């Protein structure tokens, strides 16, 4: 028997993987938003306040904040697509589903570290008001979803 999934991965083009990353990034961003909304409700925090923190203009508009979150998630997804292209370019190194999720989790841990320690303090973002572990777990959820979605997409192609 021939492992067709690995043969297909070999034919992946760079641009296709980038677009896969974008799609997966936006979807994973939705999953992360759902997780954040759930934890906010558990903390008895209004969803408008939660998503208003993502508004880069500091006007605390929940809608702008929500779309900003999705947009940034999409861009991070594109970057993950680049990582995925490098990792899965050879059939020998192509990750399995759980390896893809671990890769996603590692990637999101890096994003969390970069955001929490450098980007958010520099822009004086109100996202720093969230508990750090909550924000970190949200990133983990994002990373796991991102890894799984990109892996699924690579199989479907």
């Amino acid at each position, binding site marked *: 028997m021939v492992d067709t999934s690995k043969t297909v991965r070999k034919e992946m083009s760079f641009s296709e993987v980038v677009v896969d990353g*974008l799609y997966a990034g936006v979807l994973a961003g939705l999953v992360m938003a759902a997780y954040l909304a759930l934890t906010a409700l558990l903390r008895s925090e209004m969803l408008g306040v939660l998503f208003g923190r993502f508004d*880069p203009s500091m006007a605390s508009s929940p809608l702008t904040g929500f*779309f900003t979150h*999705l947009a940034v998630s999409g*861009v991070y997804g594109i970057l993950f697509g680049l990582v995925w292209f490098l990792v899965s370019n050879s059939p020998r190194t192509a990750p399995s589903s759980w390896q893809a999720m671990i890769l996603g989790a590692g990637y999101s841990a890096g994003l969390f570290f970069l955001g929490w320690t450098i980007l958010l303090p520099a*822009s004086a973002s109100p996202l720093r008001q969230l508990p750090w572990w909550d924000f970190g777990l949200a990133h983990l959820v994002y990373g796991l979803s991102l890894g799984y979605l990109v892996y699924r997409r690579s199989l479907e192609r």
Partner: protein
Amino acid sequence: MMSNRKTTLLAWAFCGLAIASALFGLWVEFINRDSYASLMAFVSQAVWRLSPIAFALPAALIVSRQPRNAVGWLLLIPAVILFINAPLEPYMIGIASADIPLTPLLIFVAWYIGNSWLLLIFPLLLILLLFPSGKPPSPRWRWVGYAALFWAALFVLLSTLTDTFELGGLVFPIPFGFIPAEIVNLILVPWQFGLVALAALCLVAFIVRYRRGSATEREQIKWLLYACGVFVAIYIAGFVFDLGGSETLAGYVWGTILGLTIMSIPIVIAVAVLRYRLWDIDIIIRRTLIYGALTVTLGLVYFGSVVLLQSLFTAVTGQSSTLALVISTLGIAALFTPLRRRIQRDIDRRFFRKKYNAEQTLAIFATTARDEVELKNLAEALLSVVQETMQPDRVNLWLRKGESKR
């Protein structure tokens, strides 16, 4: 009964008046262009000034080609009303601020303006009921049309028999009105519910016609659905981003686009009724879906990329940089083609399955043709691909003998 020639002349005469009125309004706006905050504010207003033309021209075209089709006449009514109201509404605003004594003529003008919205709304409801043939979907639906006419007449009767009515902050007494305004306002509450019910019935008639209609009728309805869909999408976008009445560039751009989408509705009605390039609608819908999704996605990526890069530059250099915009623009330029290809594939797979299946079959055949060396197998594959993509009644393959070895 008027002859076709006379009705055509009448329709074109109304159309001419509407065009003259719209152009005059546009000229007045142009003279006063300095009073606008920006060029876009002027353009936004100018588009609304041109709306009577968008109704009058398609209406006159339909009436001249199909005088018995009620849709043309119904389209002409809003055009005429917009033409009449254009000079009257500023006049009423002037009166409200000048405190002029009320004359019978003034009261009549105010009464007319207070009722004229009926002549904008009810023709649109009846168009839903009668589009595209000018008749209801079946004789059983006729009563909806009569009910709509009765409902409009009831409103006119109530607003005529009320003792006073209010318009633009002014209270006008009606000389022969005897029903107290409070009672009329009370009666108008169930009247409004009736209007919503009528609108729902007209919509149901529209859906029934689509479900039971012929292929041609469905294509005609698709045109109107397409224009209404675009209008609703633009309207919702303005509502979500709070652009309605906003005196910003985005607000004026949105106002202009909204005006154009409203103007496109009578135009597509004419296209559908006159069956001009009727079957192009599937291509137009497909392209709108593809390029609409592409624009939204690229906009989202651009915005996300600018936000991220600006925060990165702020963290590194302590200030924002225009380099973020340059990199983001280059990024979306690079993303354009692969993203369009992907969106096109997804939309074809979901909404245009037949086309997608045909493309898939051709792609598989291309692989088979590359690898297959047996003529018999290749011929079978070719017949199969023709059958699946073209779906002919019968297919034969003729192979010339004796010239295979060269």
